[in-house]
């Protein structure tokens, strides 16, 4: 019991600790690829610390919701990150929320963030919110369709079960899985305010989505939101990793070596994902806001197609 | 004897239908009224013949009523009315005389078809009498729907009633109540029509029903 709790706690701390690093990695890789020097790898940590120390400023008519949202967003994302198997599957609380619930938790975080965007009553907050909900309203069903596909293959929506099943030899290569993977990557890009949909580095007013929404935040609130954003990125990477690259994921009840190996492999997967992300982001241009639905819509269609294939034939 | 009785009855009934046809092609009001009087005369003869053959003296009352009212009083009153109102112009018809006559033929054929399906064992006199009566009734209706003028419509209606009387008297042993009611209804009809004509003249300048139609409650 104690050990189980310890493993679970280790995962929570691990994701929390690694999250800014992943963001930083992708960021500096992008800079390098663009022949810029770019920020140091650990810059996100410094930013966080600086922000946390600073006095938070609040607009005059910001409400309690505005202040509570960062904490809510952070904790919902963190819980989601804690429930996705990273280095080990079958953690003690893994059954408290399945994949659908994890998606919903992330949705909840976004719900409150979007509300916060409207709270101060500025035009930019509204822009951010309206675009964010538009993107989310397509990305979320796409994600659910992917969940369906995976769940149908594994016979479960429980991530630990899925991971274990995916690592087993009787999965094989399947068309629907491939479609789901592509769709999941597309959704992940959209959900994390990444390149073709949103530019995480932009502050050009009319192109921002995520940044516009959190424009009024400062100090520790902003720090939490940034951290939550990094966590969310890690959730998606973990998700891709545990479903499509399930090799080396240990059982939570397994021995220490297996766990350590799992952790090392997990870190490797994260690095690989970040590199892939960085490379992808420099090779692609941002879409106009009203082209974004086409992109995510395509993800939705792929997800639907994958599910459909599963429904029609067990073998696909 | 029987054949002779039948033939005479048929003659009168057929005559009534013929006079109905004559009414169909009248185009002057005065002439129409005169033909109607003739219609009533033929009817009276027919009824009288029935009274005689059926040995039903009460039918003579009907004869008397028919002669008094339909042959004399009503035509005279109508003539006067027309003169007073100054409407001796032509009868306005809806469809031409020719098509009306054709329609009339059709109606007579129809009444034959309908009535001759009645089993022949039933009283043959009644059966053929009824066919003629039906024809007269239908022709009366035809007059009513093809004439625009109120006086000619009234005449159409009365010829229709003549057909009824023909039928009623042809029905042997029909209780007296019927004849009285027929006469009664004609009386009432005439009185009320008279009242209406009076009122109508009081308020409108013509008895043309068409003029009445201008005052409908829901003109758009």
């Amino acid at each position, binding site marked *: 019991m104690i050990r189980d709790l310890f493993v679970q706690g280790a995962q929570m701390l691990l994701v929390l600790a690694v999250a800014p690093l992943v963001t930083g990695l992708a960021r500096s890789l992008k800079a390098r690829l663009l022949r810029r020097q770019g920020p140091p790898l650990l810059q996100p940590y410094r930013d966080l610390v600086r922000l946390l120390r600073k006095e938070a400023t609040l607009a005059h008519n910001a409400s309690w919701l505005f202040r509570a949202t960062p904490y809510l967003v952070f904790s919902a994302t963190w819980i989601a990150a804690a429930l996705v198997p990273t280095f080990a599957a079958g953690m003690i609380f893994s059954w408290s929320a399945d994949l659908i619930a994890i998606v919903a938790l992330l949705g909840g975080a976004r719900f409150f963030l979007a509300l916060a965007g409207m709270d101060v009553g500025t035009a930019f907050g509204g822009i951010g919110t309206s675009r964010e909900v538009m993107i989310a309203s397509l990305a979320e069903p796409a994600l659910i369709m992917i969940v369906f596909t995976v769940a149908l293959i594994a016979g479960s929506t429980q991530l630990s079960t899925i991971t274990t099943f995916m690592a087993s030899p009787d999965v094989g290569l399947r068309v629907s899985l491939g479609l789901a993977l592509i769709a999941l990557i597309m959704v992940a890009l959209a959900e994390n305010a990444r390149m073709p949909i949103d530019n995480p580095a932009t502050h050009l007013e009319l192109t921002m989505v995520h940044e516009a929404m959190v424009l009024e935040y400062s100090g520790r609130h902003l720090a939490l939101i940034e951290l939550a954003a990094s966590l969310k990125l890690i959730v998606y990477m973990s998700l891709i990793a545990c479903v499509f690259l399930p090799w080396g994921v240990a059982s939570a009840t397994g021995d220490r070596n297996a766990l350590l190996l799992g952790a090392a492999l997990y870190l490797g997967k994260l690095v690989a994902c970040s590199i892939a992300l960085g490379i992808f982001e420099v090779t692609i241009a941002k879409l106009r806001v009203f082209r974004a639905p086409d992109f995510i819509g395509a993800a939705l269609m792929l997800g639907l197609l994958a599910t459909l294939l599963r429904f029609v034939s067990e073998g696909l | 004897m029987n054949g002779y009785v039948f033939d005479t009855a048929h003659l009168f009934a057929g005559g009534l239908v013929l006079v109905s046809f004559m009414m169909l092609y009248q185009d002057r009001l005065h002439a129409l009224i005169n033909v109607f009087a003739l219609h009533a005369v033929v009817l009276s003869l027919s009824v009288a013949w029935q009274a005689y053959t059926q040995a039903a003296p009460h039918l003579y009352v009907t004869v008397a009523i028919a002669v008094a009212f339909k042959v004399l009083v009503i035509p005279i009153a109508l003539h006067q009315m027309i003169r007073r109102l100054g409407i001796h112009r032509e009868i306005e018809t809806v469809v031409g005389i020719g098509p009306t006559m054709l329609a009339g033929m059709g109606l007579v054929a129809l009444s034959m078809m*309908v*009535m001759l*399906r*009645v*089993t022949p*064992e*039933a*009283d043959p006199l*009644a059966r053929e009498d*009824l066919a003629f*009566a*039906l024809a007269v*009734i239908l022709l009366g*209706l035809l007059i*009513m729907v093809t004439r625009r003028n109120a006086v000619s*419509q009234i005449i159409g*209606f009365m010829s*229709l*009633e003549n*057909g*009824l009387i023909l*039928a*009623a008297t042809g*029905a*042997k*042993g*029909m*209780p007296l*109540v*019927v004849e009285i*009611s*027929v006469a*009664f*209804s004609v009386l*009432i*009809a005439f009185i*009320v*029509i008279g009242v*209406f004509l009076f*009122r*109508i003249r009081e*308020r409108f300048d013509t008895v043309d*029903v068409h003029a*009445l*139609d201008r*005052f*409908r*409650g*829901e003109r758009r």
Partner: protein
Amino acid sequence: MILPFDPLIVILGTPAAAAALLAIIPSYRVGAWFNVLACLITLAAAASLFFAERRADDFLLIDDLNIVFIVLNAFVGFTTSVFSAGYIAHELESGRLTPAHLRFYHALFQVMMFGMNLALIANNIGLMWVAIELATLTTVVMVGIYRTHEAIEAAWKYFILGSVGIALALFGTILVYMAARPVVGEGLDGMVWTVLIKHVAAFDPALLNVAFVFLLLGYGTKVGLAPLHAWLPDAHAEGPTPISAVLSGLLLNVALYAVLRFKLLLAANTQAIAPGPLMVLLGLVSVIFAAFMLYRRRDIKRFFAYSSIEHMGIITFAFGIGGPLANFAGLLHMTMHSLTKSAIFYSVGHIAQVKGTQKIADIRGLTETHPVLGWTLVLGVAAIAGLPPSGLFMSEFLIITSTFARAPLLAILLVLGLLIAFGALLWRVSTVAFGEPTGSRAPTKALYLPMFAHLALVFTAGIFLPPALVAWFQQVAQSLG
């Protein structure tokens, strides 16, 4: 039970004597209340029929079927006379009628009641015919009593179409006699309904067929079935409102009663055509036609007159379908329609008086200006539209469900007609009763009792029908085949 008096004599004698008396009573006030009294006596006598023995002689007949009609007739006649007493006072004030007119009016009212009662009680089809004509002719005169252009035109139209109907019905009657003569012999017997129904199986079917066509069209004109209906809307709209109420509530029923009697006759002869389909056809045409006509109406009384056509169509349809359920429903519907429609006309009469107009467009927001009248109208329309708990819902429920199981297509056509009519009814009532109020807000001196009584009966019937009444209706329904 043996009654100390002969109810039939009272039922016929009271109106006849009252008519004579009313013609000479000079004071219209006394006349009005005397009129009420006469109707009350008639009602009491009619009610006593429940206890009277069934009987039939050469001229008069009392059986289960006509008691329904007689009691209904006397009851609505009575409430109408009460309503009329309040109504005509206002007409006198506004100068539309003179005291002389009123004397005439009251006398005719009783003549009309006499005619209708006689038609219902008559055992002789000739007598029945005479009585119906009498009732018709008196209403013709009543419709024209305002002597306005519109009133006279309406009366004229009614008269002409009615007379043609008279003629057709008479011819039908003669044909029935002709059919009967070879079997039952010459003379009076050939016209006595109880004798006819006993021997009808042996009558010549072809003759009966023709007779029924004439009778259906002749009396159907009086029932107001489309396409023979043309007199009905105008007569309702232009006459005094009590007469509209009586026309819709009673005269149409009396004519329908005649059709029913002959339907029975025809149904008892197996070789003759089935009368049902003809009635179903006419009923359906009436329902659908009236439903569409409701939409373009501008005059509120004419509007409800079309609704009467619709309901007569429904009732004819129900009797045409036949069978114990549909017949029961038809009887119930007829009763409920009489009560509801007359209540609506009472309310409309007061509304038209207080607002000084019959134009629908000029009456708005009635529940605001005259809450009682307005809500009564809403309730009345809800009832007539067949919304529960009105008794009309029960009857329509029975008609539709029982028809749907047997002839789905017919039921669907009927339902379409009902829905279309429903749309028009509710549309009109929502403009008249609701919305920004217009017109006079002056309080009315209306006598609400008649409408309340009617609506209370209608709404109670939808929830609870006394078992005795049900048993009796069922028996009648059974006898209607």
